[in-house]
């Protein structure tokens, strides 16, 4: 508790100094804005109607920080809290949101913002510089019970300064390229007038409070345990804003709690839910078929996106006595038949992932191709590496040691895939023992670096991140993300340059080189990616000609960079009545490959 008190004192001390310092803006700032980027919605979209979706569980709280706040529902709340700037979902340019203009300081870690004077909280109060200063106080407060945020807003966000009621600057801890400054240091405002007290009761007191927001929708009704309703703001301050035209069309968005996906699907078939995401093969191929689809009442969309892919595959522990040899790792990659897994149990729905960072635009090195299943190559390499002898079971042996390796994985439903990989690897004389652990034990094993190899997928980021995964600082010790124990001076050198480089071209070049070096070590065998999203919707849900963006993970997302669809109420009435009759519409099964990455 003492530490907490000290921290609180420290925080308020910092705040005090922030509030009292009367800074003036540096001269020669080059203010920038961006109103020339293309729009990604259809400006003629119809407004109106009610959109119904489902959530699998009722959120445990409506707070967006603090205990239990990390539920999937939080994304809906956060999506209605605008940032200072946004990234264009197709071109990734910086575009204005709460700020109208921004400028960069010479120090490489400070950005100045001019807040739009029109910006309003949902309760009508103006958004001002004080709301940003308050964010820092709020996020650093021990009372919100969120150590990660406490830490981030102390270690990464160094200071927020107010110049006048609508001008601020934010300074981060390290220099970064310009666009990344916005991504890492661009904080959201917190409604100071709403949180009157910030004390130890905060967590309990604000569990079910509806916090004022700046986005297009606000929660209008909560039926405890059953549903949550969002209503479109009639006079949203940003509704005529260029990039918002044609978006956020439904008057109401209702999230019903349906605790089982199969039951939710039958609600969808009845028309109680408007849309249904069908990424799972089982649903797409088997369930989403039949009369409703043939009669054109429900339409099916498959939409290729081009966003960062999870770095998913087999990570090889290079400290392992056998696997420390590069040749063995490369032979192993050639002995794993991911192509067969894709063609059979995955029904060709997945694609082979080619490299560690894929989908990061120019930062990804698209020249890299994952090592293909090739028994001839695998056998040749092993024969030439003194592993030419085989024992009675066909497993290779060298000096009495068998080429037998453990593969640790944490998901029961992946067993089928690995069973296939195991059988084909036997042909190369490699025995792969499948070790299934429950997910927390699995995580512990790899954090202790006790695995020979493991199957895992890392989540994505804004830009490729190398230091945590591949720098020798993190090798040979527990509790770091360098689970391949990569310890390579050349890679270290490039990572250091990559981290300090602020010039985009140079960084891209470094990222490409790093990616190639990592590929050459053979420490990571990429497995699968799903390069699209897909789903089905009733025919009254209408879309622009291109129904999503490069970064659309869910076509039916009503908030954030989504909200492109609209509801044709006339068609809804017509369709509902014609359901009983035998009217037939043309069946729709569209594939959108505008953003499909062409692999050379």
């Amino acid at each position, binding site marked *: 508790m003492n530490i907490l008190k000290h921290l609180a004192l420290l925080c308020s001390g910092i705040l005090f100094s922030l509030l009292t310092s009367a800074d003036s803006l540096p001269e020669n700032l080059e203010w920038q804005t961006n109103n020339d980027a293309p729009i990604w919605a259809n400006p003629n979209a119809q407004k109106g109607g009610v959109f119904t979706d489902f959530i699998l569980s009722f959120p445990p709280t409506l707070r967006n920080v603090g205990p239990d706040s990390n539920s999937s529902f939080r994304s809906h709340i956060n999506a209605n809290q605008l940032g200072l700037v946004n990234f264009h979902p197709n071109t990734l340019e910086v575009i204005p949101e709460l700020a109208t203009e921004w400028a960069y300081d010479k120090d490489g870690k400070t950005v100045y913002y001019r807040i739009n004077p029109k910006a309003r909280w949902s309760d009508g109060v103006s958004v001002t510089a004080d709301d940003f200063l308050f964010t820092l106080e709020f996020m650093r407060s021990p009372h919100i019970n969120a150590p990660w945020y406490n830490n981030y807003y102390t270690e990464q966000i160094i200071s927020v300064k107010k110049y006048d009621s609508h001008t601020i600057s934010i300074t981060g801890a390290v220099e970064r390229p310009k666009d990344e400054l916005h991504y890492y240091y661009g904080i959201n405002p917190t409604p100071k007038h709403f949180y009157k007290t910030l004390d130890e009761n905060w967590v309990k007191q604000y569990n079910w409070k509806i916090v004022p927001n700046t986005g297009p929708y606000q929660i209008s009704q909560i039926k405890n345990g059953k549903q949550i309703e969002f209503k479109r703001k009639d006079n949203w301050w940003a509704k005529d804003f260029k990039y918002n035209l044609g978006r956020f069309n439904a008057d109401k968005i209702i999230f019903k709690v349906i605790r089982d996906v199969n039951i939710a699907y039958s609600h969808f078939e009845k028309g109680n839910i408007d849309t249904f995401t069908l990424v799972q093969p089982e649903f797409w191929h088997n369930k989403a078929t039949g009369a409703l689809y043939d009669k054109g009442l429900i339409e099916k969309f498959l939409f290729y996106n081009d966003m960062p892919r999870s770095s998913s595959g087999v990570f090889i522990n290079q400290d392992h006595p056998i696997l420390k040899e590069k040749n063995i790792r490369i032979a192993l990659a050639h002995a794993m038949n991911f192509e067969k897994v894709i063609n059979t149990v995955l029904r060709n729905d997945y694609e082979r992932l080619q490299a560690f960072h894929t989908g990061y635009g120019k930062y990804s090195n698209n020249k890299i191709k994952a090592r293909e299943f090739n028994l001839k190559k695998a056998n040749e390499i092993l024969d030439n590496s003194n592993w030419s002898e085989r024992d009675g079971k066909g497993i290779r042996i060298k000096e009495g040691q068998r080429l037998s390796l453990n593969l640790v994985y944490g998901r029961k439903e992946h*067993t089928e895939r690995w069973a296939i990989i195991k059988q084909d690897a036997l042909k190369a004389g490699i025995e792969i023992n499948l070790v299934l652990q*429950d997910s927390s034990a699995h995580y512990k094993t790899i954090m202790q670096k006790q695995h020979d190899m493991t199957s895992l997928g890392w989540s994505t980021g804004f830009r490729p991140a190398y230091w945590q995964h591949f720098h020798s600082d993190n090798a040979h010790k527990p509790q770091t993300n360098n689970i391949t124990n990569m310890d390579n001076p050349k890679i270290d050198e490039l990572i250091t340059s990559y981290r300090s480089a602020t010039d985009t071209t140079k960084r891209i070049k470094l990222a490409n080189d790093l990616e190639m070096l990592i590929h050459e070590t053979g420490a990571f065998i990429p497995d699968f990616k799903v390069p699209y999203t897909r789903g089905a919707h009733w025919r009254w849900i209408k879309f622009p000609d291109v129904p999503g963006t490069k970064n659309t993970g869910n076509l039916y997302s009503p908030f954030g960079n989504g909200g492109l669809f609209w509801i044709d109420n006339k068609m809804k009435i017509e369709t509902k009545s014609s359901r009983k009759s035998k009217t037939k519409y043309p069946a729709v099964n569209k594939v959108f490959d505008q953003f499909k990455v062409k692999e050379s």
Partner: protein
Amino acid sequence: MLSPQAKRRWQRFKSLKRGYYSFIALCVLILLSLFAELWVNNRPLIVSYNDEIYFPSYGDILPGSTFGLDYAWETNYRELSEKFKQENNGNWVFGPIIPYNPFENHFIEGEYPPYPPSMENKHYLGTDMAGRDILSRLVYGFRIAILFSLFLLVITYVIGIVIGALMGFLGGKFDLVFQRIIEILSNVPILYIIMIVASIITPNFWTLAVMLGAFSWMGLTWYMRTETYRENTREYVLAARAIGASNWRIILKHILPNSVSILVTFFPFSVVSGITALTSLDYLGFGLPAPTPSWGELLQQGTSNLDYIWIAASAVVALTIVLTLVTFIGEAIREAFDPKKFSYFS
């Protein structure tokens, strides 16, 4: 040699037709499963190649190079058979009835697994989600389950009998202490413990059996203890003691044979509980590591993919048949050993 009493019990057991036939059926099943390699296998029984005869069923793999193929891994006998037929050089392959081993992923061009039962593909019960033959996995899974439960039975009986007999025979503090230990152990939720352990280390056949055994011997001790207490005070035991027989001799030669009847009646039910324990652990994913053929794992696949009904149906039917057989045997044994029929009390 069987004692007259045992003979009479055997006669009685044989006369109980339902139990007796179940017993025979189960023995046949076990026997068949022990030689599963000969009738459920992707390796053929006999290969005749260039006037030499090979018997690949057991032992080391025969690399493709043995039969003039250009690879060093195990021969694909299905392809070999086709090749021989086309060449027509007098070489031939004679294979088992079910030509799949339980690990083999067999994929049919242009179709996605699981494949429904089909005579043509020789998947008589279809395949599972990874294209493995269900019948083959049932047979090998049965062998593992039954051997597992027999081994488990040996562990629990040895511990249970020894401790139970000692408790009854020695009495006093030893009895008291073990009674408490047993009470404590009986309240330990075994399944949870095994799940916790299995999530940390991957169990194998032996560790799993020993772990389960370590927590399931307690039930037996109570019966053994009471039996020993009772027999201990009988005249023949007193007589043996008077002659100067050692404690071990009294326990092993006099008391144990006279209390065996009660143990035998528990036999079939222990087998059932062994099979169920392994199946449920596999079902939950905490049993033997993949891809070991297992009924629990099949059940798990079946219940999460109910659209492919043959997966769950095969596992459920097989489980029901075996458990019913064992229960019938159990009933018959109980009946045959019923002291009311053949009483030796005077």
